[in-house]
């Protein structure tokens, strides 16, 4: 039993770091997550007892920590991870939400799902095998989804004799590749998830590494969240009209601030009507607030009685979203059937839903080389490409690279209702 270094009590004032983990099948991802959960007290005795019982039933020798993360019967039977699972642990400094995503190439869409809400991505590399196609693919997705922090964990250092040279070579090789990506903060940590080196406790066997442990990095990495606090955008989610004697004139616009800051008294423009008015009050869950910023859920009242409904957006007169029916985007395909050129889909963006038609497939990306695939424009499951589409009603958007909230959309199959595409507006 490993003694926890941190009390399990997450103070109510701490913040949340959402991170995703990726790696090829045998890179030790489950072991790493198992260790983080275990060492931070997030694995309870009854869970551990269940894992021990099943491990013994199967006649396996080592405690199979992947049983902690593979929740579905089919996953445990087949020994693979099918779907994103969410895990929670906390230390004295932070609460953590892990989106644990499968490593197989055919589950790229799950990685995209996990990455869409992540502040940080951990990509695992087997020190013996080196940088693989999967490493490049996962790093590209992290970059495309604009995850600000990427941590490359060089795992299984025990199997390369804790070699500083091997670590330095891999850092060099990956850095050369990463220079072509858009990653704000890149960190390398040599670890052994199996033995615990540099995961929670500093490794005595790699004294040459001065960059700290993985957990220390997770606890201390600066993140102002992935929210943009400059461009004020408030997509209206629903209108609250109490219709009772006490509040019969009350008409509040409920929604979540997508980005920027709003204050009572601010001049605002209502889109798409373009009418200007002033914010009268802003109410949060505990009553009136003096300012609201992402990702707060609030109710806004306006000085003028304007026609505003779901799908509309409030912004500031001197900082407006782009308004257009013609959209250029990177698309990650999630559906089983390939994207239909000239096909119609439902598009959901902020709180707005509209029909759209695919106009052009510009190119498909080769995820291992970052190059365009010549002569292949079929966007199938797990493919990423660049498309142009036209919407039935204009979208109010910003580029994804500056605003995750107003730059992202999903495509829905009109007939099966399945979510088939994840789009990032250029």
């Amino acid at each position, binding site marked *: 039993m490993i003694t926890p270094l941190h009390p399990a009590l997450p103070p109510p004032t701490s913040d949340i770091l959402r991170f995703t983990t990726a790696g090829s099948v045998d890179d030790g991802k489950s072991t790493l997550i198992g260790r983080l959960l275990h060492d931070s007290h997030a694995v309870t005795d009854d869970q551990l007892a269940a894992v021990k019982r099943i491990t013994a039933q199967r006649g396996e020798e080592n405690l199979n920590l992947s049983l902690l993360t593979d929740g579905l019967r089919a996953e445990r039977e087949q020994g693979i991870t099918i779907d994103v699972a969410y895990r929670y642990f*906390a230390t004295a400094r932070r609460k953590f939400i892990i989106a644990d995503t499968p490593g197989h190439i055919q589950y790229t869409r799950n990685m995209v799902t996990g990455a869409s809400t992540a502040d940080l991505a951990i990509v695992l590399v087997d020190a013996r095998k080196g940088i693989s196609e999967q490493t490049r693919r996962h790093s590209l997705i992290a970059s495309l989804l604009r995850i600000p922090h990427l941590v490359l964990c060089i795992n299984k250092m025990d199997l390369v004799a804790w070699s500083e040279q091997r670590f330095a070579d891999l850092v060099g090789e990956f850095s050369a590749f990463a220079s072509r990506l858009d990653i704000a903060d890149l960190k390398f940590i040599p670890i052994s998830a199996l033995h615990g080196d540099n995961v929670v406790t500093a490794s005595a066997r790699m004294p040459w590494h001065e960059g700290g442990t993985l957990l220390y990095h997770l606890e201390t990495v600066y993140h102002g969240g992935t929210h943009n606090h400059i461009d004020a955008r408030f997509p209206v989610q629903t209108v609250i009209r109490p219709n009772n004697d006490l509040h019969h004139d009350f008409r509040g616009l409920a929604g979540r601030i997508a980005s920027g800051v709003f204050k009572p008294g601010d001049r605002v423009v209502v889109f798409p009507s373009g009418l200007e008015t002033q914010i009268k009050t802003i109410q949060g869950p505990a009553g009136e607030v003096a300012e609201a910023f992402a990702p707060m859920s609030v109710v806004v009242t306006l000085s003028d009685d304007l026609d505003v409904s779901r799908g509309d957006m409030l912004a500031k007169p001197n900082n407006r979203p782009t308004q257009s029916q013609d959209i250029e985007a990177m698309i990650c395909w999630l559906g089983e059937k390939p994207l239909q050129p000239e096909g119609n889909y439902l598009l959901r963006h902020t709180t707005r839903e509209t029909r759209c038609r695919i106009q052009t497939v510009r190119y498909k990306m080769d995820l291992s080389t970052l190059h365009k695939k010549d002569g292949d424009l079929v966007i199938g499951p797990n493919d990423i490409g660049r498309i142009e589409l036209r919407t039935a009603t204009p979208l109010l958007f910003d580029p994804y690279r500056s605003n995750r909230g107003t730059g992202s959309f999903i495509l829905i199959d009109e007939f099966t209702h399945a979510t088939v595409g994840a789009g990032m507006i250029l």
Partner: protein
Amino acid sequence: MSSYHLPHLAQLEHEAIFVLRETVAQFDRPALLFSGGKDSTVLLQLARKAFQPAALPFPLVHVDTGHNFPETLAFRDRVIAETGARLIVRQVEDSIKAGRVTEESGANASRNALQTVTLLDAIQESRFDACIGGARRDEEKARAKERFFSHRDEFGQWNPKNQRPELWNLFNGRKAPGEHFRIFPLSNWTELDVWHYIAQERLALPSLYFSHERAMVNRHGVLLAHSPYLTLHPGETIDRQRVRFRTVGDMTCTGATVSTAATLDEVIQEVAVSRMGERGGRADDLRSDSALEDRKRAGYF
């Protein structure tokens, strides 16, 4: 820049309110599944906040197995009286009488699984298209795979292998007629978050959650409350013990923990250092390694 920061409990609160409002915006006939337990009590508080100063835009639904703790039912009725919320109660007893389900027999009999039929009948009868529940991903390994918006087919079944990817804050509530969704606004909350929120909001709870003396039966390591619904196995004895419950379900399958935690602060301290999982004392989950997954597939809460 750094002043634009929400503490983690506030982040969870804002997220849950967003999900609740999105439910009302995307569905015609939502309902909130209210058990009288701590999670649905938190859920109700969030729902009231999400739509204030308007009234709750959906009714509460309680599936009563007939084997509930009397404390839970008293608490439920008190909450309804205080909040003025609409409550729809459906009885498992009625499903049994109507021949829709057959009661389990034997000493381990429980009505826990029968609730699914009563629930799905209630959903169909009232034509609910979205049922909001207080389940959390940290509770159990099958629940860790849940979406915020979780699709159910026309038979009320969950297909965990073919779930819709859920990206950013974009929830897809599209469905065919007869299908419905389960909505889980507390997905990202842990047991400790729920307790911190109860303390912050000063929410009342059934007295079961706090230490009290009770007649208990130890069955295979699970401490069950002695009640008219529990048939004793040969050799089992009834002992009075100081206990509290970490989850509140049927009297026949909800295990207690020996505890002296009688106040909110003491419960929070206890939960923070506990080495047992919250549902570790649920006899309904311990029936097999995938018991909860199997019940969820069939349409359970």
